[in-house]
């Protein structure tokens, strides 16, 4: 069993701010986070309220290092308010849960899964996030388990 520990908040690095787009460059946030990984931690997951992007894309829900240590997820576009709808806290939490699992999945070496029922299915819109499954499919689970084992031993 993995244990989860919540760390004190880290400020978003100012150099990740893209003034022209009023968004934060997620890769720079990941870089900052890598300097904060505790000795005993296998993975570090960041959650932020800031709207994230990478230079080539208009937005991202989150970013992770495939097979790496750090992942970050943004709440900004998971909120119903972002789309002019009334706030829905349970829905927001469900979406956040899925996005966190998804980005963490990448850090365990997973790429997008063709199965709609798998949380690793690609999602570029909140509709995608809502329709895909909430857990890893059998195949992805196997990959996570075997990669965790090697990482722990390593």
């Amino acid at each position, binding site marked *: 069993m993995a244990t989860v520990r919540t760390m004190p908040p880290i400020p978003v690095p100012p150099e990740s701010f893209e003034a022209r787009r009023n968004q934060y460059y997620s890769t720079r946030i990941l870089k900052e986070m890598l300097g904060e990984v505790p000795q005993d931690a296998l993975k570090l997951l960041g959650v932020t309220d800031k709207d994230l992007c990478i230079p*080539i*894309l208009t937005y*991202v829900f989150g970013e992770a290092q*495939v097979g790496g240590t750090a992942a970050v997820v943004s709440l900004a576009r998971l909120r119903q308010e972002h789309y002019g709808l009334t706030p829905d806290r349970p829905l927001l939490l469900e979406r956040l849960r899925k996005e966190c699992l998804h980005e963490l999945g*990448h850090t365990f070496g997973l*790429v*997008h899964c063709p199965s709609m029922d798998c949380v690793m299915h690609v999602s*570029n819109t909140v509709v995608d996030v809502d329709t895909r499954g909430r857990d890893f499919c059998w195949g992805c689970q196997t990959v996570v388990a075997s990669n965790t084992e090697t990482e722990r031993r390593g």
Partner: protein
Amino acid sequence: MTMEKKVNIMVVDDEEIVRTSLTGWLEEDGYHVEAVESGRKALERLPERDWDLMLVDLKMPGMDGIQLMDEVHKTAPELLVIIMTAYATVDTAVKAMKKGAYDYFVKPFNPDDISLTIRKIVDHHKLVQENLFLRKELKKQYKLRDMISKNEKMLEIFDLARTVAKSSSTVLIQGESGTGKELLARAIHDESPRMDAPFISVSCASLTESLLESELFGHEKGAFTGATALNRGKLELAQDGTLFLDEIGDISLKLQMDLLRVLEQKEFRRVGGSELIPINSRILAATNRDLAAAIAEERFRADLYYRLNVISIHIPPLRERREDIPLLVDHFIEKFNIEMGKEIRGISEGAVRILMGNDWPGNARELRNVIERAVVVAKGNIVTESDITLPSTTSDANHRTKSLEEIEMAHIRVVLNDNQWNIVRSAQALGIDRVTLYNKIKKFGLKKEGAPPKR
């Protein structure tokens, strides 16, 4: 997690930040991505891999995106290129698409757009590959259009047919009736570059000489009584396509002469017409007669025979390829299920044994008719022995109502035909001497089928 071949994507952009962020994002999708900073580097990397897609920045120092695309398409015309640009101008977009770009994206991209586009490309690519693979499988297996077989000789015929389809040579298809001569002719047409032009079939045996003449050559208005309008013949209708002359062994000597002229001069006149009409159709002919024997008896012109017989294909009778019977049975059951809306799932072992044991003088066509009847009468969803009714052969048909003399006559005729009217061999087969056989022939007034009246 799928085990397919990874899709290879090359990113070409002079900005490092674009290269790294795009690479990382695409890798999350499971693609193999390599990024280079210039057109020159891209061209160097081109032969290293089987690239599926290139994402190319429009504005780069040195070679720009469109120049690079032009260069790439010189050696890899199939490679899909997406042009990326920071400057959204309709002009450059139009220019890029005209030059052969698959799509055009303005930076920064909407993740959904690019994701969907790449997925579409990959899916399309997969379908093309799968299609190619299946085509190859189908070809090396046991099918040629509507023909099906696993007999060695038949597979050789399928191969030969595919090869000759590419040419315009005349082909003579021989074989007993019901072996699929017309199906083969159709398959040759469908496999040929003429596939989009008409395939016209004429059954030469079913028409009288004058009817066949006007059927083939057409006639001008007023060419004969009843010719009230101009009528284009099959030769004209088959223009650029294929004309299939079935039962060519049955046409008169005069028509043989006319046909020979058409084959040699590639032009003809309508009946009653004076205008010479050039033809560019391919001629395929078929017969169930022994043309060599017909030539020996001067019933068929040797010169026409050699014209038609440029390539000769002989389809073996079904009794010489019994291994095809189960295959054909399944094929016909499937076909009639669709035609009749039935759901027959198979055939009982006993029924197969009956079918395998029959000699099928009417070949695959006869088998098809038997299966058609069986599918109609079958009560359950399996064809059983009781659903099979074999057609009675000529030698034992209604024998109870015939006199001994009639049966003797029928039997002698069958034996004579089987031995091409060779008297010595027929007499041997019948267990009588030559003189007795001659006397019987005279007594029963037997004549060789298709023989011209004695002069």
